[in-house]
Structures are given as structure tokens and as C-alpha cells.
């Protein structure tokens, strides 16, 4: 009887002390797969290629004003991709967990990407997001929680960034929700961007990786140099109605110009048909 009691207590303690651990572990080295949106992600999007993105009128004007020469300004050269875009780029991803040493509670999940080496922390300890007056960062402030075996990540406090690396803007008021799902050695990420400034509807896209234990992540250095001498304070941009590349992409691929200018309707099959 005494042994039975001891066993009962043992099982009860074991069950009660089961740490609040990730329902599934994402730690490891992951290599991206580019079968989704390859032309946009690796060769890169064309200028004025906005279709499939639910931008509003303000987002379109901002995109059409954008000149690639902006990236030659020293203060623009070392900007990393923000966390809602960075996973689209080339390069592997490392994921590692951080545990509290005594309780082995999962405190945070960290990620680092090869391209531009952005490091990111997803807080798993239930902390709240910082107040509105706190600084914004390229990776934003992320908290995660489990929905079954799906990791749901909420990100705020992002710096003003981009939806596509051809000048389509995403504001610093955006709110991003990600869903990370692991199926054996495959990892899928669904990104939902809500932006009250430049989107008329949430923008959703997905990325995929394969576990790749043999891969590594190189250091990434960025050195700012003056590439073109310009008058102090000049900011390259196109005046409204004067972007010389409007229509170039549409003409190259035989697409209607209206479609290439994006907007919510260009996301749906009814428009594409």
C-alpha cells in the first residue's frame, strides 16, 4: 500500500511538473525552398510589379515614387530586411531555444538568417509588448504562444519597412501575425501583415524550409561607402506621374497595366481570370 502511494505521488509530481515546453521543437538549421514566388524572391521583383498585393492608393503612390537609386545613399545601404520580409530572401535560418535554467521553462525562441544576418527574439514567457513610446526595430518586438503544435507569433514595434523590395512600403504601424508549423523535417511559415497605412486588406504569404543539419551560417558584414556624389540632402525619387518604368513590366510579360499596379482585387482568381 505504501509503495502504491509512493507511485501515485511520483506520477502526480511528474505530470504536474511537466515544463511548459514547446509542443514541438523548431531548433536546428533550416534551408529555404523557393518553389513559391521564385521570380520575386531570388532574381527579384521588377519595378512596378505590384500585382497580388492589397495595397491602397497611398501604397501605390509611394511605390511609384520610389527610385532604386535611393539604396545608393549611405544611410540606406545597410538596412536589413525587416522580420516580416526577411524570410523571403536567400539564405539559411538557424533556430535555437532559450530556457530558464532552474525550471527549464522556454523563455524565448531565437532566429538568425544568413542574408544580412538579422537576429530575432520571439518571447515565450508571457511578457507584454512595450509601450508605444519605445523604440521600433527592424525585427520588431515578437511574442509567441502555442496553438496546438503551431507557434503563433505576434509582432509590433517594427520600423517602417517594405512589402516587396521594389519600393512598396509597409508602415511602422503594421501588426504582423506569423504561424510556424513543422511537419517532420519541413517547416512552413504563414505571415499575415495588417497595415492601416498602406494595405486595404491583410496581406498573407508563406515560406518553407527543410531541416539541413549540415548547413552553416556565415558572418555578414556591411560597409557603408559613398557610391555616387550628390548634393547634400538629396533624396532620389520620382515625382507623381513621372516614373519612367510604369508599364515596362506589363509590356514585357503581356499583362494589363491595371493588374501590375496591384490592389486587393488583383489577389483574387476572379480578377486574374
Amino acid at each position, binding site marked *: 500500500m505504501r509503495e502504491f502511494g509512493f507511485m501515485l505521488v511520483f506520477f502526480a509530481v511528474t505530470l504536474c511538473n511537466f515544463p511548459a515546453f514547446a509542443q514541438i521543437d523548431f531548433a536546428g538549421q533550416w534551408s529555404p525552398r523557393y518553389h513559391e514566388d521564385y521570380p520575386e524572391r531570388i532574381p527579384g521583383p521588377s519595378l512596378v510589379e505590384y500585382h497580388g498585393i492589397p495595397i*491602397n*492608393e*497611398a*501604397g501605390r*503612390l*509611394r511605390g511609384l*515614387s520610389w527610385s532604386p537609386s*535611393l539604396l545608393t545613399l549611405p*544611410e*540606406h*545601404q*545597410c*538596412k*536589413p530586411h525587416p522580420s516580416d520580409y526577411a524570410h523571403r530572401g536567400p539564405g539559411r535560418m538557424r533556430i535555437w531555444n532559450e530556457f530558464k535554467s532552474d525550471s527549464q521553462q522556454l523563455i524565448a525562441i531565437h532566429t538568425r538568417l544568413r542574408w*544580412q*544576418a*538579422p537576429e530575432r527574439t520571439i518571447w515565450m514567457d508571457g511578457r507584454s509588448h512595450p*509601450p*508605444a*513610446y*519605445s*523604440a*521600433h*526595430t*527592424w525585427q520588431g518586438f515578437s511574442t509567441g504562444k502555442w496553438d496546438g503544435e503551431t507557434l503563433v507569433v505576434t509582432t509590433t514595434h517594427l*520600423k*517602417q519597412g517594405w512589402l516587396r523590395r521594389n519600393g512598396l*512600403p509597409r*508602415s*511602422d*504601424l503594421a501588426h504582423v501575425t506569423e504561424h510556424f508549423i513543422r511537419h517532420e523535417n519541413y517547416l512552413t511559415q504563414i505571415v499575415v501583415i495588417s497595415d*492601416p*497605412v*498602406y494595405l486595404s486588406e491583410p496581406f498573407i504569404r508563406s515560406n518553407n524550409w527543410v531541416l539541413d543539419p549540415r548547413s552553416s551560417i556565415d558572418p555578414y558584414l*556591411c560597409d557603408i561607402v559613398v557610391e555616387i556624389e550628390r548634393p*547634400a*540632402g*538629396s*533624396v532620389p*525619387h520620382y*515625382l*507623381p506621374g513621372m516614373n519612367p518604368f510604369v508599364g515596362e513590366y506589363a509590356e514585357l510579360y503581356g499583362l494589363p497595366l491595371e493588374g501590375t499596379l496591384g490592389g486587393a482585387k488583383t489577389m483574387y482568381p476572379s480578377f486574374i481570370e
Partner: protein
Amino acid sequence: MKLAMTRMLLSRSVWFLFTCLTLIFLGSVLISPRIGYGQPSLNFDDIEIDVLHVQGNVYMLVGAGGNITLQVGREGVLIVDSMYPELADKVLGVIRELSDQPIRYLINTHVHPDHIGGNAILAQAGTNFAAGNVAGVIDDAANTATIIAHENVLFRMSSRETPPPFEAWPTDTFFNSSKEVYFNGEAVRVLHQPTAHTDGDSIVFFRRSDVISTGDLFVTTSYPYIDLARGGSIQGIVGALNQILELTVPADRQEGGTMVIPGHGRLCDEADVVEYRDMLTIIRDRIQYMVDQGMSLREVQNARPTLDYDGRYGAESGFWTTEQFVEAVYVGINQGG
């Protein structure tokens, strides 16, 4: 019966909707952050002063009105701007939680009431370093903190129809491009930015802590308030932003490094100033082009040259609307400023 139920539900829905819209309207009027010059009808009793440690010796205080920058060390306390007078005691309470040393310096970035309102109370709570040619008792010369500002701040303050109390006026002014103080083990540079938000603007650069306090020529909550009547101009603001970018050095991956405390809004770094500078330069260039085409102010406003930034910085009502901002840029360009 069914019809009556439907009417009742509809009636309740309409009242519910009306109540919600009224609450939203009142909320937006009472709670939304305001900018700049005018004093909003705030209930100061409900406002808390939040403290954010920026880096080094420097803190940012957030409440109502302009942000306050605080530098704290063994020699005492240096304050940049002072919010509204109604909040000065709360500000003082926060300062006393961070330091028991005397307030030695108060620097004003410009003359607007939401930045100088607490001057008298905060300065009188401090003591100055005094020595040398003092007529009378030397302690009398040291019984308030020194208030530093560009001389145009003093001119504007003292020439008002109803000037603030004499105790709020700057006691140590400068008329050239900068003033320097070495305090709490770091160089503090007060750099005049001519014809920017006003004609008396200064930014304050804490060199060791690597923090810049900008006043209202850089805010994250709205388009900049260009106070044409007090010597402000779009060109001066863009020039000042470019000077801030000359001083800032970002850390790794264009983030952190020199931190920037705006006049209103959240803590920033170089990349945020770049974004704001780019925006203002683009809008200025657009309006300049329209002016060159001979467009009238109304035509320029109707063309909406700020459309792509209005969702972030614009306002259709309140103290500083998008229409007023476009007008200020238009007038400034036409005046050659």
C-alpha cells in the same frame, strides 16, 4: 409581434451604434496625442509621467506636451524642455526618483508652451553654479537652475502679449550657432537650427551618452508644425534633419547607435530620422515642382502631394491639419525659405 421585436432591436442597434460613435469621437478628441503649440484641453490629473532609460546618463520622460530629456549624474540633473506647468510637480517627482542631486540646467529647444510651461517650477527647484562677479549675496545668484536657450527663444517669450512668468525666461542665451556645457562627465552641445520649426530651435547632443534631443523639428506623431509666424520654414526643418543625420552614427545593421528623442512620439534612431527626412524632402520637391508649374495653393492642396504619407502623419482636424502643413510648405517655398 415579430415586427415590433424587429423595430425594438433596430432601435436598440441604432442607439448602440450612436453611443459607440459618440464614445469613439469623445475618445479621439480627449485621448489622441496632440502636437505643438496649442494647449489641448487635458485632464492633467489623469496624466502619468513615464520614464524610459535611453542609454548612458540619458532618460526620456513621456507625459503630455513635448517629451522631456533628462541627463542625470553626480554633478546634478540637466533637463531639456519642461512640458506644461500643470505637470511640473509630477515631473519633479520623477526626477527625484532618479536623482537626489540638484537640477543645474534646463535647456529649451524652442519657445512653444508645451516645451517651456514647466520652466519656472523646475528651474526654481534647482540651484546653479555661481561664482565671480556677483553683486550681493552669492547664494542669491545660485538659487535657481540656469535656463539655456537660443536668444530668439527669449525674444519670442518676452514679447508675447501675455508672457510667461519672468522666472520661466532663459537666463543664459546664445546668438551664434552653438553653446557647449561639460556636465556629468560628458560634453553637451546645444546646436541652433535656424528657421526650422521656429527661428529659435536648438537640438541637444549628449556626446558620451550618444543621444540627441531634437525638439519639435522632428516628431513621430504628425507632419512637422512649421510655425511661419515665428520664423519656421520647410527648408530649415529639412536642413536640421540633415544635420541630425550628420551627427548620428548607427550601430550594426543600421539600428541603434546614436539614439534620437523626438519632440513628440516614440524613441528613435538614425533610420527613423532618415525616413522622416526622406518624406519631407519628397513632399517639398513635389510642392516645389507644382509651384514652378504656376499652381495656386488651392490647386496644390487639391493635387494631394502628401497622399502617400497622410495615413501615417496627416490629420483632417485638430491643431495641425494636413491642409495647413501643405499651405506652410507652399508659402515657405514661395517666400524662398
